[in-house]
């Protein structure tokens, strides 16, 4: 062949070029490894492995009865990558309509057309992290995972889920401010803040390797620090009382269009706070727990402090209950200032007990001023020794500081002592006043208000909170018993006689103070309406005090501003509720009123075989529609009992209304539900309606009556 030689030459030439290509490849590998190697190896370290925080589960906050007050529940953020590798034009546009429709079904705030447009835009913009929805719950997540396209998952369907823990208060407003919150970027509040260390636990660390995108895989078990879950907090809050307190306060505040108010109910012996409610009027007129007034607001308390004045006088043996005191004509001049009693014309000559019961300002001012006038510090020291000038030291942040003026104070004047004696020129928080009254109810022993019973972990007590005695005896036994007699007189014939009750006796003291609050001065609203702080503080039952309670309502704008009329009814409503439900106070009577008008006893629904046996035994004729159902509903007629089949599908919640608790619990727990019973008798209501799909482990509440 003519060009055989040149073919050979050309092939070797090409071969030579390929060798050069090969050398350049291997040369580049060498450069990557030895010249640029270090930078890439560092990058490799960073991008492939990292210590990742493992978030600890924050502890729950429980009410005293075990109801959940605050818990962390998972919330999900759902995002969508509309340009994920596997989503082709055909797939995307093929499924777009049905996906938009499904989204509209779950999130109807956007129409299917809007959803479609949004998803389309996301694809056009190549928004690879498009937000579908924040903070959806698990049930919604389960649904959304079944949507067209999304059901293909992360890689084929571009569906992304990010879990976050959201703090939830199942009872929303109830004791909201006392439960509080602990959020990033804001000052923690309430118990969440006070016990943040115990609740939050310790987050763990784990060496993880990135698989792809943001998917991390743990490397080994040895490297990790296990997260330590937070402890649970069992509070002293009683959910039922709290509910009543909150509602009673709300009703009264709304009626009087009050600015704000608070209620605290405390167990006398232990200082455990059973209910604490704070409500503030919002701009639009509704009320909300936005500040813990009971703990934080330190104001001039008014007449409720007279108890301390008399107690001091009893201690110094200046007066006795039967001593008479001249309250005069209702007007009394102290230096340049006139003191008034609320009763027109005055109380005249009355006993000390009556003076307290009628809440005469002049009487108490004269007793204190005339006996301590030469040595006012003696009086002040009495109050100091009772602990009125000390903070309680409760764990919740923001306790208002009490203020009892010393006689050496530069602002001390001739009228200071008489005015102090009936609640001005000093400051106390509602909780501090309550603590003082509680001490009187407790025989002189002052205990610290307590919000937390114990700290638990995995069902075991880590730390039980003991009752802390602040002052073993604020006054002698005799003085205390005189004080309690006076408090009973207030309700019996004094200013709070509207709180008299047939079944049990309340003891307490009304208070009505003109408000000297820096926010609105002595006048409130339009400038002409006087603003007042109405309060009632007391305990019950009077003979053997179990609970103490304070109610404070601020700046009621109506003319009704006396403590007994504004704060008293709230106190009574709460006391009634507590009294009627506490077995330790008064055993509850069992109501029994069968309304059956037929000769045949009314039967509950239940298990067919059991019911048949009973009816057979009692020789009651029965009429059954069929015999294949295990469970039946009964209809009691004049002559016979009719049995109707009551069957249901597997995995659907059965209808248990009309059954007794035993059958209902058997049925429901067999289906995987957790049953909670309320009341007794026949089931009247079930919290999950019949026929819904059973979610395993879900709680169902049955109301019986």
């Amino acid at each position, binding site marked *: *062949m003519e*060009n055989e030689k*040149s*073919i*050979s030459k*050309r*092939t*070797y030439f*090409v*071969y030579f070029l*390929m*060798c050069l*290509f*090969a050398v*350049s*490849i*291997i040369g*580049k*590998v*060498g450069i*990557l*490894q030895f010249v*640029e*190697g270090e*930078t*890439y*190896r560092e*990058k*490799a370290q960073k*991008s*492939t492995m990292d210590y990742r925080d493992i978030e600890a589960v924050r502890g729950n906050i429980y009410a005293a009865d075990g109801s959940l007050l605050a818990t962390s529940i998972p919330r999900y953020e759902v995002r969508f990558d509309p340009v994920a*590798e596997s989503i*082709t034009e055909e797939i995307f546009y093929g499924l777009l309509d049905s996906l938009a429709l499904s989204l509209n079904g779950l999130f109807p705030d956007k129409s299917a057309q809007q959803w479609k447009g949004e998803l389309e835009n996301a694809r056009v913009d190549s928004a690879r992290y498009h937000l579908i929805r924040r903070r959806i719950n698990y049930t919604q997540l389960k649904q959304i995972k079944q949507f067209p396209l999304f059901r293909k998952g992360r*890689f*084929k369907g571009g569906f992304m889920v990010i879990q976050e823990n959201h703090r939830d208060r199942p009872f929303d407003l109830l004791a909201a401010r006392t439960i509080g919150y602990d959020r990033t970027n804001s000052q923690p509040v309430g118990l969440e803040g006070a016990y943040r260390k115990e609740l939050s636990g310790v987050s763990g660390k784990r060496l993880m*390797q*990135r*698989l*792809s995108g943001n998917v991390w895989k743990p490397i080994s078990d040895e490297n990790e620090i296990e997260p330590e879950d937070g402890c649970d907090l069992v509070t002293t809050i009683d959910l039922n009382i709290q509910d009543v307190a909150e509602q009673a306060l709300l009703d009264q505040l709304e009626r009087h269009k009050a600015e704000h108010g608070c209620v605290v109910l405390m167990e006398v012996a232990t200082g455990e706070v059973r209910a604490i409610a704070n409500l503030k009027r919002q701009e639009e007129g509704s009320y909300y727990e936005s500040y813990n007034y009971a703990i934080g607001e330190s104001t001039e308390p008014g007449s409720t402090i007279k108890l301390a004045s008399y107690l001091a006088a009893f201690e110094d043996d200046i007066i006795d209950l039967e001593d008479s005191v001249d309250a005069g004509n209702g007007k009394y001049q102290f230096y340049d200032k006139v003191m008034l009693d609320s009763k027109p014309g005055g109380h005249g000559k009355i006993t000390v007990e009556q003076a307290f019961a009628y809440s005469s300002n002049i009487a108490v001012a004269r007793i204190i001023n005339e006996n301590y006038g030469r040595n006012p510090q003696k009086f002040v020291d009495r109050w100091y020794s009772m602990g009125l000038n000390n903070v309680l030291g409760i764990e919740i942040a923001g306790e208002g500081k009490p203020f009892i003026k010393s006689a050496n104070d530069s602002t001390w004047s001739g009228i200071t002592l008489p005015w102090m004696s009936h609640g001005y020129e000093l400051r106390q928080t509602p909780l501090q006043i309550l603590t003082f009254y509680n001490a009187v109810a407790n025989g002189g022993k002052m205990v610290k208000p307590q919000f937390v019973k114990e700290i638990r972990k995995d069902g075991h007590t880590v730390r039980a909170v003991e009752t802390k005695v602040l002052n073993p005896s604020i006054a002698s036994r005799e003085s205390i018993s005189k004080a309690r007699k006076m408090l009973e007189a207030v309700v019996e014939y004094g200013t709070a006689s509207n709180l008299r009750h047939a079944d049990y006796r309340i003891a307490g003291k009304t208070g009505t103070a003109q408000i000297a609050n820096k926010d609105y001065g002595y006048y409130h609203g339009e400038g002409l309406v006087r603003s007042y702080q109405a309060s009632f503080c007391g305990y019950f039952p009077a003979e053997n005090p179990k609970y103490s309670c304070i109610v404070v309502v601020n700046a009621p704008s109506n003319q009704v501003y006396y403590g007994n009329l504004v704060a008293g009814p709230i106190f009574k409503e709460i006391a009634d509720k507590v009294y009627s439900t506490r077995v330790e106070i008064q055993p509850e009577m069992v109501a029994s009123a069968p309304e059956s008008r037929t000769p045949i006893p009314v039967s509950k629904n239940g298990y067919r075989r059991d019911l048949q046996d009973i009816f057979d035994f009692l020789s009651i004729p029965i009429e059954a529609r069929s015999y294949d159902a295990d469970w039946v509903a009964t209809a009691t007629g004049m002559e016979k009992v009719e049995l109707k089949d009551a069957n249901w599908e597997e995995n659907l919640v059965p209808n248990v209304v009309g059954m007794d608790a035993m059958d209902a619990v058997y049925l429901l727990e067999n289906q995987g539900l957790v049953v909670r019973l309320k009341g007794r008798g026949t089931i009247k209501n079930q919290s999950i309606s019949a026929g819904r799909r059973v979610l395993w482990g879900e709680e169902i509440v049955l109301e019986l009556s």
Partner: protein
Amino acid sequence: METLYKHIKGDKAIWLVVLFLAIASTLLVYSSIVTLAYRHHGGNTFFYLLRHGFFVFAGVGIIYLVHRMKYTYFSRLAQLALYASGPLLLITLLFGVTINGAARWLNIPIINQTFQTSDFAKLALMMFLARRISQKQPVINDWTKSTVQIILPIVMVCGLILPADLSTSALVFFSSLVLMFVGGVPKKHLLALIGIGIISLTLVYGVGKAFPGSFDRLDTWISRIENFGEGDSKGNYQIEQSKIAAATGGFTGKGPGNSTQRHFLPHPYSDFIFAIVLEEYGLIGGLGMLLLYLILFFRCVKIVNTCPKHFGALLVFGISFMLVLQAFINMGVAVDILPVTGQPLPLVSMGGTSIWFTCISMGIILSVSRSLELETENVKSGKNNVVT
């Protein structure tokens, strides 16, 4: 073993290269499909291993069958194959299965297996060119009688591959050019052909720039080419991960199955399999793989230079050059001396039917080699006259 050895004809070095590449392929694919397996088969890597193993095993069978054929048949087959590839490519372009916005795949209806028609077409073209160039040897210097006749099929095949697959089109075009060069087409004519190539590319680039979004792939190429050697982009993320693989592999590598970069590389089992070679087997492994292809090409060049017939020589050269060039392009992309393209590493990358087409190529090379052996044997035993 004796009998098996008897049946295996052709260049033994090439057979060894095939054997080594098949083993390497199995190891590398098994290691690099972890992420893919997690995405589609719940972490069942065995599924992919079996599938790939089947393709490789069947592929070796194909080599065997093809190499037993008389290579002169391929001249006739080439003609048929080329005529078939035109419509096939057209159908693919219009109705093919789209993956990543590129319509490169066609579904074979009965066995439900997709295959890349360009794999078929490029082989057909090389075979056909070998035939045509050898036929035109007497008039090789004539533009109309020879060069135009050679150019026409090239333009057809490359033109039909181009819209969906720029890199394969370029690979085929360049391989054809080199084959023509070796086949003795005048250099002036080759320059003209290069001119045609450049003009058509510029045209396509212009269309892409003028009407962005009209062709998905067009935008991808433009950005890839424009971004090559520049700052950050999605393509450069892949490249960076590939470079990390090379750098962390070191001299001897991390060892089989120890790659971490397989989790970050988008196609560690095909386009970036050389990165896995460098990471798990190091510089040594990379060099070894490079040498395997160089040995393959060297043995093929030897065959070319001993083959008495133009067709056989050009057939072996065209096929082997295209195959080795493709391998080097794959490696060049992995070490960032070429822009990102989707060329698999022949015989090594996972990819069903593409392996089979490579195997057919190997079979053809070995078939030529086998007949050469036969001829020398016949010469030795004096039976030369029987053949001619």
